[in-house]
């Protein structure tokens, strides 16, 4: 029997209070594409980092081409032909593409870097794998898809036998994802073994030869795309049946509640991020904004909610103008906000769950009488919401910081949706949340719609926008480039619009 390219035997890694990997064994052969599928926190990243020596497993063996690799030995893994493309790009933004690719193993002439040879090498590499890059461009000026290409080239430069990709598609447009999947297929054809991580069922089924499903640190199933389908994989990932398609009735859109008129907003660098925006959201509908991140969605949401100054234009709720830069009064006028970054804007990590559930109404009856807070009302409110929103916590006195990502998000959703609001602004409502909680949060958003709220959904996950929205607006470069009907929206067409192409 021939030796597999990568052989993991009984890998176990424990962190205080958590078992990240438990007794995981798997193999990758030459030319094979193996997908590691699992929810956030299932231990996928830990496992591949162990292979690359960035994490030191407590026990178990890692063999590459039959060679035993010592735990935590990054240099050894590289020497035996392992390359890794990290989830967060490991590129120096202010340096050129060439400098980034040669870093750590620079071609030299005497004491100096041979810049000409380096440039030639990058061009040859780019030619060989069909990945076009400009060797002299500065990395921070390049789009994300291009940066990922550089990451892949960087990995391939070291004559890799095994390429590890950690959530490579998380930041890409659908077109860029298709390109990447083609690159992966071509690499496998040329004999490279590919181990890639994803929690997106669609792409796993599209590209993998073998699928390993992780749940709570254990390998719970090994299957192939032929033997499996999206429902079956989701079941394996979560451990129970999951309804992937959001079940929702026909929208009964009524009058316009939220209207945005000629809104201009700047980003943190004082550059224009939202340019002349007009948008109407009706009561009883979900309007989804699709777009690659960084096209002004964040600035739009923050300007609506009063967290970022509006340079020009206005935001109206039922025809009344909302104040600029006053989140509290904006909220009082009926805009609920599920913020993109729950750790930063959604919760106070060191406060208890019951306090977090009343962050925006702690001083109003029944939670306070004049200056005095009402402990009884706080507790009963918390107990009701914890049950109603299925927040899994040992107690309502537990600090919010101690909860898992999904449960933190449920606290935010519970607070924002339990109050009677006219408008719900939900930014990336299911980011970093497990599949089970995603299903729940989606149902809550649909319920808010059915209760007559106008829901503005902003998400970088196209699938989320497609499954929830009654109407879809595609945002690119700070503008809405198209409105589509939610029912018959074409995935490929939206993808092109998101990339800034017309149709």
């Amino acid at each position, binding site marked *: 029997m021939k030796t597999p390219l990568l052989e993991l035997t009984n890998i176990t890694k424990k962190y205080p209070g958590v078992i990240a990997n438990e007794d995981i064994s798997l193999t990758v052969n030459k030319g094979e594409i193996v997908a590691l599928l699992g929810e956030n926190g299932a231990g996928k990243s830990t496992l591949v980092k162990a292979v690359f020596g960035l994490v030191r497993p407590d026990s178990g063996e890692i063999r590459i081409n039959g060679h035993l690799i010592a735990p935590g030995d*990054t240099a050894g893994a*590289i020497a035996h032909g392992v390359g890794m493309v*990290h989830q967060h790009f*490991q590129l120096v933004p*202010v*340096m050129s593409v060439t400098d980034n690719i040669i*870093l750590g193993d620079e071609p030299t002439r005497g004491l100096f*870097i041979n810049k000409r040879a380096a440039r030639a090498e990058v061009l040859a590499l780019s030619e060989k794998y069909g990945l076009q890059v400009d060797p002299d461009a500065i990395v921070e000026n390049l789009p994300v898809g291009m940066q990922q290409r550089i990451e892949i080239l960087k990995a391939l430069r070291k004559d890799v036998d095994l390429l590890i990709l950690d959530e490579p598609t998380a930041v890409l447009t659908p077109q860029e994802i298709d390109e990447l999947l083609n690159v992966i297929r071509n690499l496998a054809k040329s004999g490279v073994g590919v181990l890639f991580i994803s929690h997106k069922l669609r792409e796993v089924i599209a590209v993998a030869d073998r699928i390993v499903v992780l749940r709570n640190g254990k390998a719970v199933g090994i299957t192939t795309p032929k033997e499996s389908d999206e429902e079956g994989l989701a079941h394996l990932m979560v451990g129970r049946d999951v309804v992937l398609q959001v079940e929702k009735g026909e929208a009964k859109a009524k009058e316009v509640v939220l209207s945005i008129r000629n809104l201009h907003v700047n980003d943190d660098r004082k550059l224009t991020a939202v340019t002349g925006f007009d948008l109407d959201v009706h009561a009883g509908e979900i309007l989804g904004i699709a777009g690659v991140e960084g096209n002004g969605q964040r600035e739009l949401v923050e300007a609506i909610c009063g967290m970022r100054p509006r340079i020009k234009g206005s935001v109206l709720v039922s025809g009344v103008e909302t104040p600029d830069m006053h989140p509290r009064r904006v909220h009082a006028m009926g805009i609920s906000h599920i913020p993109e970054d729950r750790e930063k804007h959604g919760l106070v990590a060191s406060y208890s769950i019951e306090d977090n559930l009343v962050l925006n109404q702690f001083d109003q009856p029944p939670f306070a009488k004049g200056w005095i807070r009402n402990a009884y009302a706080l507790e009963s409110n918390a107990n009701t919401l914890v049950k109603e929103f299925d927040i899994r916590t040992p107690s309502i006195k537990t600090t919010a910081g101690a909860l898992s990502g999904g449960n933190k998000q449920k606290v935010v959703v519970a607070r924002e949706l339990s109050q009677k609001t006219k408008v719900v602004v939900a930014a990336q409502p299911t980011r970093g949340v497990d599949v089970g909680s995603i299903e729940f949060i989606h149902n809550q958003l649909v319920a808010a719609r059915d209760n007559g709220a106008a829901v503005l959904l902003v998400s970088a996950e196209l699938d989320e926008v497609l499954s929830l929205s009654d109407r879809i607006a595609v945002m690119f470069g700070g503008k809405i480039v198209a409105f589509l009907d939610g029912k018959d929206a074409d995935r490929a067409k939206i993808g092109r619009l998101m990339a800034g192409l017309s149709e």
Partner: protein
Amino acid sequence: MIKKYLGSRWSPFVATFSVILFFYLKDALATTSVVATSITFGLPLAMAAMVGIMCERTGIVNIGIEGTLLVSSFIGFFVASVSGNLLVGLFAAVCMGAVSGLLLALLSVTWKMDQIIAGTIINILATGLTSFFYKQGHTLPSTFPEIDIPGLSAIPFFGPVLFMHGPLTFLGFFLILVLWVALYFTPWGLRSRSVGEHPGSADTAGVSVVRMRYLNVTIAGAFGGLTGAYLTLELVGSWDRGFSAGRGFTALALMIFGRWNPLGALAAALFFGVAQAITNQLMITEVVTIPLQFTNMLPYVLTILILAISAGKVRAPAAEGQPYEKESA
């Protein structure tokens, strides 16, 4: 190509040269002496700025330069005085500087202490120790003698300005050039800068962030030791409490003004030196009479001005001041 690495800091050069030319035409002798003096004033600042550049390019903020200068000049002076040998004193000063660098690395890299506090510790330690062990009455056998490079030193103006200096001055200029070349044209430089900008990318490329930071901060410390030795063994010839006189802090401002580029910082330091030399000349010749307190203020006022001018226009190494943590989980 070359222009890019100069950091487009030509304006101080142009300003300086036109001023020099103007005065040279009026009074050749005095101008020559002023410019020669300005090199004497500027060089130690430039060298101290190199200490900051080497550290900050790898992501370590070093506000302990002042302490390094103080303690290494102290050791250099007393070892030279007791042993009667300047070279032994020089060696001791460089070693002392390296030790102070090593201490900063230990505090900020290994123990991940806040780097501002770590630097302050070095400054306080240096002031305390040198004041405590200071004894009056020591003298040096001599200072490093001036070397007049045959032939070249006879050229009018450029001779005295460029080719009649002590050995440590020549060494200092040479090492600044070496540092510039090393930073932009060698693997060491590329790795150093990547560690200071984005340590994660260096780490995943197999470059040890910890080793790189230890190495550079220690070398920088040794360079600070050389600067201290230059001050006491070549420039001044004595040592007193508070000897470094704020040069370590001024150097940090010059480093920022020079955009963390060795040549940029050198130009800024020379510009600074010229300003100081002119003031001195005006005082000596009694062309103007300014109270001493104001002339003594000059370095600090200029430092504030420089920082105010460059604020918001320059971009520091991105990972500056942050201890590197390998990703967990």
